[in-house]
């Protein structure tokens, strides 16, 4: 298949692996931000193919994982209210809140539906004028434009029974947080290709200059990631710290202007709590005040609860690249995808879940 087979080509991959091995003369620690990239690395065992001095650590870019427990709890409370239909992206349904998850709300009689696009939630709202239809709008800059579009369109139509429970995250503040940590080990970043398709990569140029760190915008297929790793190693070996774009078939420097303008109309930057990490200033997006009538957080009077992760969970260290999932004593023993203790095990794209799904054999569990 075009745009797929050539990026999973074993010969190309072998060439890039040889290239990385030849270029890397010292140990380097690289981080991929996006959970989709983590998933590909684990699925294809790319970390086993590259020379051992190039260490890959996994970033906090799984939106399902980092969505705060409070948001999940709030969604569960709203979905349990009579007359409410909650529409969500599929993989949010299994994410455990403090006491339950959306699958259990559904089994208990709640109207919880899966959608591929927030525009489907608008359709549900139009077709069911007597129900309050709430879209659980989470994600990074990737899903934010579509979610913003749904609210914008709902407002334009004056759709009084539609609202969104919004909890968006921004990638650059998370990278900044990692780089400012005194314990940071990461020397080069693979920036998330889909986020940059929307936002472009100007923000990353600032980060790269300020912190003297190379950043390569990368795609999601094995050859994409190997190429991005090779580009990062080349920069590091040459003492350069620049932003380069590996994912040119999708990403332009300016990004998608239309999507950005729409996001800006509907959403504004706010402080945001990341599950497993904590509060990161200016790292989220919420609905602007003029869209308050579509803001489920404002419409539904559900108390915000403060919840704590189990003490045993080392997700904060995993999400900052300080530990590997297999370094955790609970990994695959007390913490599995069916019984997750923390953020990176809750979704298939979380680092712990990716290790569990593809690699627990290698770690003799």
């Amino acid at each position: 298949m075009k745009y797929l087979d050539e990026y999973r080509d074993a010969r190309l991959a072998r060439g890039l692996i040889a290239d990385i091995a030849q270029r890397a003369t010292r140990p380097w620690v690289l981080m991929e931000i996006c959970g989709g990239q983590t998933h590909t690395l684990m699925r294809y065992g790319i970390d086993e193919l590259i020379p051992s001095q190039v260490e890959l650590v996994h970033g906090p870019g799984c939106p399902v994982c980092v969505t705060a427990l409070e948001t999940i709890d709030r969604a569960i409370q709203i979905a349990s209210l009579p007359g409410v239909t909650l529409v969500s992206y599929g993989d949010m349904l299994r994410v455990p809140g403090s006491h339950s998850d959306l699958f259990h709300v559904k089994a208990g009689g709640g109207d919880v539906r899966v959608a591929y696009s927030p525009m489907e939630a608008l359709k549900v709202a139009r077709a069911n004028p007597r129900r309050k239809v709430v879209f659980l709008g989470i994600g990074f800059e990737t899903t934010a434009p579509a979610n913003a579009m749904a609210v914008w369109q709902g407002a334009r139509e004056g759709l009084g029974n539609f609202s969104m429970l919004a909890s968006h995250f921004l990638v650059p503040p998370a990278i900044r947080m990692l780089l400012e940590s005194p314990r940071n080990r990461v020397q080069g970043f693979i920036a998330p290709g889909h986020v940059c398709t929307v936002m472009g990569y100007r923000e990353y140029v600032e980060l790269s200059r300020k912190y003297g760190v190379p950043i390569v915008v990368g795609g999601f297929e094995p050859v994409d990631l190997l190429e991005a790793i090779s580009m990062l190693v080349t920069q590091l070996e040459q003492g350069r710290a620049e932003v380069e774009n590996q994912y040119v078939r999708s990403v332009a420097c300016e990004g998608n202007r239309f999507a950005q303008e729409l996001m800006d109309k509907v959403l504004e930057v706010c402080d945001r709590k990341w599950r497993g990490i904590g509060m990161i200033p200016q790292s989220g997006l919420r609905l602007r005040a003029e869209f308050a009538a579509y803001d489920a957080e404002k419409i539904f009077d559900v108390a915000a609860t403060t919840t704590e992760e189990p003490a045993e969970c080392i997700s904060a260290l995993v999400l900052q690249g300080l530990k590997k999932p297999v370094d955790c004593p609970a990994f695959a023993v007390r913490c599995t995808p069916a019984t997750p203790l923390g953020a990176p095990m809750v979704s298939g794209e979380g680092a712990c879940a990716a290790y569990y799904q593809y690699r627990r054999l290698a770690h003799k569990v």
Partner: protein
Amino acid sequence: MPDDRNPLEGLMCPVPLPAGEKILLGHGSGGRLSAALLQEVFLAAFRNPALAKLNDQAVVDVGGVRLAFTTDSFVVNPLFFPGGDIGSLAVYGTVNDLAVGGAQPLFLSAGFIIEEGLPLETLRRVVESLRAAAKAAGVEVVTGDTKVVERGKGDGLFINTSGIGRVPAGVNLSADQARPGDCVLLSGTLGDHGIAILSQRGGLEFETPIISDLAPLHSLVAAMLEVTHSIRCLRDPTRGGLSSTLNEFAAQSRVGIVVEESAIPIREEVKGACELLGLDALYVANEGRLVAVVAAPEAERVLGAMHSHPLGANARLIGKVVDAHPGIVTMRTCLGTSRIVDMLAGDQLPRIC
């Protein structure tokens, strides 16, 4: 002594069912939640040697004749999809459960649970399709039942079919018989049925429409058994897909299985749909494919027999049974690395991005 140990115990690692729990959709997915339900509710209640085999059909001896007996319920939505409908599915699904036990399917029952308000014309179309499918598969529907439930208490139409078939002498297929060194064969492309249903449900349109692989497999099985009786395990990878079937073989036979990613045939359009929908074809349902574990010396001949049959034209050798990592299925990726092919906990969920 009959082997009535629980074949799932210790190996399947099913998700435990906590007290006060409710049934979730995932309990019907064919994954770990289904395994837990089976183990903790049904196997706890019923224990006998035929059931303990956990095959798609029970093989019982009745006066010296070995009968295969099976039942299946069909709750597909939409009722009509590219390549079939709930009527033909209800016949072929049960025929296939008999076929993968090596049985010649003979008789079916059909029970209809009809929701008040279903257009009679819809029911007529389904029944006509069921009749035609039974004729094509050479089975007779010899008994049946209808119930009507109030509007809102059914999804239009549910059908249950049970089937009886005769197992020829010398044929002994069971999911617990795979041995290290055996070959794993797959009869055709993966995921066609599941993606045909999903695209219909989601209103997705592709340049080439994806047609369900729905088909009766008994004549293909007969052709394979004609070559040799050293086929050890046979199963049709329906819900839970190839992954669930291989994991069941591995768990029940207490062996490891290694498959080659590059050997697994998947149609380009199914690949594309899976990419688009964020799904993995290994977990998508099939209704006209089978997976066979065959003793290595006979594998080529069985594969040849499959290739000579229209339903096995794309059959491939996809992997081997190994003695390493019992209960676990691994895949050699297109890059030459190895990864686990896990059984899903519940339904495969579309990813957010």
